[in-house]
């Protein structure tokens, strides 16, 4: 009898713990969404931010975040694709490969502030690029590379060896087998990983404070010449992202409606991450259906 009672108590304690966790997390999320969502409006999403007056928006920051994300993906995807292919297809079983694996693991666990400082030291100061979108994108690339590489490697590994053997049997070179047979089959997994990683990059701030900078210069959305200083596409302008904006207005505190703006911006960030999660699942599933014979 005692054992059964013990069992009951223990199981119920586990239930209570799980319920508590859900309540805590939903309460915090709900708190942000409830106070933030009413603040989101078309005006808020598109207008420029204010430093000393209330009523500012997050338009420039939102654009910067998206632009920085795209640049980061453009730089980091090809590199991690090559590295992922190496690790899953070419890597010999020797000490060099295990060093490489360890390096990638170490890179993925580095605090993002250290990655940011390295970017600051090397690109902003040493290469005299200043606080710029490009420095920020490179710092985020360092941050994104290990995640993406591991994801691509795992997706490629999940493809059965039968496919590789079939490619070889047809007389294809290994490279062609990988790019024409293995890669398409692994694509849904890769895309899902890229989108999920994009969600992480979108919200990263610590690596950006000292690389992309903390100021949003006025940009002119009518001017799309990338070499013009006021153009949104200019790579060398400092660019404060949404996440950095939230941090900055909360730690400097000169904006009268800082908490409302940051609640709104936080809600936008959460919604974007949620969208990325949903997109990742939808794109992965539909690509898988399209590229394979599953109905």
């Amino acid at each position, binding site marked *: 009898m005692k054992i059964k009672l013990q069992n009951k108590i223990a199981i119920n304690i586990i239930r209570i713990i799980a319920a508590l*966790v859900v309540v805590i*997390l939903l309460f915090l999320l709900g708190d942000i969404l409830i106070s933030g969502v009413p603040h989101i409006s078309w005006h808020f999403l598109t207008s420029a931010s204010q430093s000393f007056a209330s009523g500012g928006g997050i338009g420039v920051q939102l654009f910067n975040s998206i632009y920085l994300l795209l640049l980061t993906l453009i730089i980091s995807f090809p590199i991690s694709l090559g*590295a992922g292919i190496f690790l899953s297809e070419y890597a010999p079983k020797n000490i060099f490969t295990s060093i490489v694996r360890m*390096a990638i693991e170490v890179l993925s*666990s580095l605090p993002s502030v250290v990655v940011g400082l*390295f970017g*600051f030291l*090397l690109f902003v100061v040493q290469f005299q690029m200043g606080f710029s979108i490009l420095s920020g994108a490179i710092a985020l690339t360092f941050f994104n590379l290990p995640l993406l590489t591991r994801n691509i490697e795992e997706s490629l590994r999940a493809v059965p060896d039968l496919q590789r053997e079939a490619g070889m049997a047809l007389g294809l070179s290994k490279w062609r087998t990988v790019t024409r047979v293995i890669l398409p089959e692994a694509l849904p997994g890769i895309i899902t990983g890229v989108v*999920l990683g994009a969600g992480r990059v979108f919200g990263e701030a610590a690596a950006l404070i000292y690389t992309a900078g903390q100021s949003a210069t006025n940009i002119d959305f009518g001017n799309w010449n990338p070499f013009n200083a006021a153009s949104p596409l200019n790579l060398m302008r400092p660019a404060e992202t949404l996440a950095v904006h939230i*941090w900055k207005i909360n730690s400097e505190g000169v904006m009268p409606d800082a908490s409302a703006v940051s609640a709104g911006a936080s809600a936008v960030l959460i919604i974007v991450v949620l969208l990325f999660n949903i997109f990742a699942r939808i794109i992965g599933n539909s690509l898988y259906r399209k590229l394979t014979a599953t109905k």
Partner: protein
Amino acid sequence: MDPIKKKIQSSSRETRQDLLGKVITYTCIALIVLVVLSIFVFVASKGMATFFVNKANFWDFLTGKNWNPSMVDSKGKPMLGALPMIAGSFGVTILAVLFATPFAIGTALYMTEIASHKGERILQSVIELLVGIPSVVYGFIGLSVIVPFVRNNIGGSGYGILSGSFVLFVMVLPTVTSMTVDSLRAVPRFYKEASLALGATKWQTIYKVILRSSTSGILTAIIFGMARAFGEALAVQMVIGNAAVMPTSLLSSASTLTSVLTMGIGNTVMGTVANNALWSLALILLLMSLFFNIVVRLIGRKGRM
């Protein structure tokens, strides 16, 4: 030369393609290794400069309690005592993980052993979403919910180690939970079936079989949580109060390695003592993350045996 001989002696199209593939992939991997190496070299050389160029005493740096790099003490040496920040960092990390571990294991057990399939899937997607939420959002939650809560119910200004560890608790909880779930799922099904067939209750099975055989996985999850908490910068910086003094209680303002770095790097001039000292803090962070990595490796090796 006749065409047949030429064709036989030169490399085929396939060989050339393979060579191209090898060159491309080796270049990519070399690039990543280069990045990691240069991060270490740059941060280490900057961090060591405090001791070699500015002649600070390494031991005083680790144990000194006065942090004021722009001032000099009675002996004419800069006041570089990093102990307050080191203590702050370890304080918030350990507290956060102590709070988070029981909750994470409980939730993971509920998801894998007790919940229905549907409940499990809902919890799983909630946790996945929470893992992806940016740390500044957690910091803002801390600022708008946790700091006032601590101020009104526990005391003090609300800024301090306690608030910092609450924020980190919320932040690492999803990470630790999802990794614990993975390791619980990896326990072979027949362990559980055998235990239940012997007449063990569910709790006995969980406690004596499932938790024991996934110990190394759970430990890895906890270490990952610690590494994440230790390296987190902005969320902690927003709620800890940022006073570089020895923390006297959980409720007084303190600072961590990361918070001092985020605040200071922009306000110091490259090459000065104050700046180099900050790089030394970054070096400590780097070494700690290396340390967590090695611990994870050791646990993994032991778990495999």
